[in-house]
């Protein structure tokens, strides 16, 4: 008989929805809030599926959780529009007004200021004492907010919507059945691990890099893995700062983002093998473990790049590939400990600083960068770096947003902001379609979202990749390139128009 009819027979569906969002990260939540916040969408049934426990209290104690995000003013506008921004406690928002970018030799630098800051900077001059509270700027470069804080504020927002959103908490998606035969025959069927089977007019994947929705829809994700890892963490530093720092090193960029008081958030890109080694050493519970990490970190921030490369090569010597860290023998452990003790990390670092100071004739650029004093316990985490972009963000009755659609080099801290921009665009397109009584699952309706976001994301993804290639991948023997970079950064710093454009892209 008719294909459609037989297929229906095979699955008993418990409930149907208009919109089903898989993944309750900030991106998925914000989309639910955007759609649920509109008067036009009343009566549309919306559900969210989340595999972890998103409803448990995410309120944090005093220490910072390791995941912080940099929210641009444009993303803030979106969070305001959906009614989430006001739910974020003011003391949990850390604005910064300036990013200082350095090259590896401290020869070139560029400052990105917020407009407000630029006007007042002259009067403040360099004599202004370092303050712990950010200047009351209404137009900062960005805001640092903990991931969990954004998430719990979004949950709070969802609870106050006029359109109720059903949350399947602690629920995994077991299977997604899509009608691949023809264009709009059947709505996607989602089987949950609770045994429930639901069906939706539109299935949205906000389910991260390894998106099950994307895989079910057979949408190809194109990209590559970098030979690098990212390390994030929360640091206690020497002085208070409301400035963000970024330094491009041949091994990858390192950035400090200001949190409150003397805390800063670390985003560090470094070779995969070094990062793995650092985490393996940490697991050994060596006596000096913390000190070593701190010294290497400070070297990466403030020393001539040769010092860091020296440390990295010494670390590489520790592991000649024979040591199995998963199952390490006492002898090997002792050997590593002895070898590590033979390197005087502190001395090498201090000597390097002295050398740099004398080279630069007393004007020490690196002085503006704070010194790491402590690393907040359990705040350090590592993750592999990859660049991915899907062939398309939509299919029939399918849409992908955030990391499910693309993932980006974290160098500019734009991952979440791109995701929020996806949410905004898709939400807007869907609300318009609902307003016109359209069957909004059809791909020609979703096309508007795809064409709007695809080019913009591609631009951002590729420019971050190009930045990475220019600043990181340049072989060290080509000094000329580095000098050109220094020259480039310095001249860029003087070209206000270009800087504004760059900043606009970054926000």
């Amino acid at each position, binding site marked *: 008989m008719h294909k459609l009819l037989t297929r229906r027979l095979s699955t008993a569906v418990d409930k149907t929805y208009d919109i089903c969002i898989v993944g309750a990260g900030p991106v998925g939540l914000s989309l639910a809030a955007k759609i649920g916040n509109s008067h036009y969408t009343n009566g549309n049934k919306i559900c969210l599926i989340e595999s972890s426990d998103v409803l448990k209290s995410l309120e944090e104690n005093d220490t910072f959780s390791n995941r912080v995000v940099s929210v641009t003013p444009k993303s803030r506008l979106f969070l305001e529009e959906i009614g989430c921004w006001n739910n974020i406690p003011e003391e949990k928002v850390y604005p910064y007004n300036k990013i200082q970018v350095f090259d590896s030799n401290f020869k070139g630098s560029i400052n990105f200021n917020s407009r407000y800051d630029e006007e007042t900077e002259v009067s403040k001059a360099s004599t202004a004492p370092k303050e712990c509270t950010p200047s009351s700027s209404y137009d900062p470069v960005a805001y640092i907010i903990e991931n969990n804080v954004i998430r719990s504020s979004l949950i709070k927002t969802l609870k106050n919507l006029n359109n109720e959103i059903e949350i399947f908490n602690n629920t995994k998606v077991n299977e997604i059945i899509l009608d691949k035969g023809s*264009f709009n025959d059947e709505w996607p069927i989602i089987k949950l691990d609770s045994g429930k089977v639901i069906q939706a007019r539109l299935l949205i994947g906000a389910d991260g890099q390894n998106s099950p929705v994307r895989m079910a829809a057979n949408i190809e994700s194109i990209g590559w893995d970098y030979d690098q890892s990212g390390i994030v963490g929360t640091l206690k530093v020497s002085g208070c700062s409301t400035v963000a720092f970024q330094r491009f090193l041949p091994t990858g960029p390192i950035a400090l983002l200001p949190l409150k008081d003397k805390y800063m958030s670390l985003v560090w890109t470094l070779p995969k093998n070094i990062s793995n080694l650092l985490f393996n050493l940490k697991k050994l519970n060596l006596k000096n473990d913390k000190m070593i990490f701190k010294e290497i970190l400070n070297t990466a921030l403030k020393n001539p790049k040769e010092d860091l490369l020296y440390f990295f090569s010494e670390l590489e010597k520790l592991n000649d590939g024979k040591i199995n860290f998963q199952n390490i023998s006492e002898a090997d452990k002792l050997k590593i400990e002895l070898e590590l003790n033979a390197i005087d990390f502190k001395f090498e670092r201090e000597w390097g600083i002295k050398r740099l100071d004398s080279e630069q004739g007393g004007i020490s650029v690196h002085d503006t960068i704070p010194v790491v004093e402590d690393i907040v316990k359990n705040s350090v985490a590592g993750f592999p770096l990859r660049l991915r972009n899907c062939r398309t963000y939509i299919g029939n009755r399918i849409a992908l947003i955030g990391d499910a659609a693309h993932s980006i080099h974290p160098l500019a801290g734009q991952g979440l902001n791109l995701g929020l921009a996806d949410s905004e665009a898709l939400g807007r397109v869907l609300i318009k379609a609902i*307003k016109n009584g359209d069957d909004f699952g059809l791909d020609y309706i979703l096309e508007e979202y795809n064409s709007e976001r695809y080019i913009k994301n591609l631009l951002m993804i590729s420019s971050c990749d190009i930045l990475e290639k220019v600043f990181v991948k340049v072989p060290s023997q080509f000094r000329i390139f580095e000098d050109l970079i220094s020259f480039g950064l310095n001249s860029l710093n003087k070209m206000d128009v270009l800087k504004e454009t760059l900043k606009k892209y970054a926000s």
Partner: protein
Amino acid sequence: MHFVRMIKRFQSSSTINKEEISKFASISNEWWDPKGKFEMLHRMNPVRVSYIRSILEEKLRATSLNKSKPFENLRILDIGCGGGLLSESLARLGGSVLGVDAGEEQINIAKLHKLKNKFHENLDLNYVQASAEQLCETEYEKFDVLCGLEIIEHVDDKSLFLKSCVDLVKPEGTLFFSTINRTPSSNFLTIFLAQNVLNWVPRGTHEFSKYITPVEFEKELNLLNCEKIQFTGMIFNPMLNKWSLVSKSDFLYQIGSDLEVNYILSCQKKKQN
């Protein structure tokens, strides 16, 4: 279960046999394929609905308006409903819709598509095979709103058709029509380019001589005791593959060429005098 129910419904609502169901299913798929033969119509639909919505919202402003179901409590007649593209959208916005088409095939396509979606959404939507004139003779009820979109250019006796339409509407009810102007540019764009060169619409869909100008249209409506609410141009942008309404700030409007090709209009039936 669903299957049995579906067949039953189908049999009760029409006389076609089972083989014909699958035949209609494939034609229905073709009709409802947004990338198929009727792509232009699919892409035009959101623009038409947004126009109808804005006119009706303006008119019903006084009464409280439900934004998600703005057509609630409105009895709407969709003349020339084809596969039911517009009817479904109007019903989704809360309208109680009757879709009418003279073609048997079209009505069956529309019915089948409605049945498919009946599993998911409960729309107040029915279809009848009839012409406007036939409906006028048999239908005892009058409608709040009538839509005759992309239909009048296919009708031979336009005066009779419009008279029937007006007769089907309550006093102070609203009528919507959309069609193509009879101008050199419409001849070039809709017949030469869209039909003969680019094959955007099936060959033979339109005949230039059957097009009607806004002036003629308004004259006919005035004769039938209707007053115009608004005439608005619709324009297709091939670069964006998108239809849009011509707004007052658009260049085309300012040079007075907004109704040059496609246009949509609304009018109100006057109170009986």
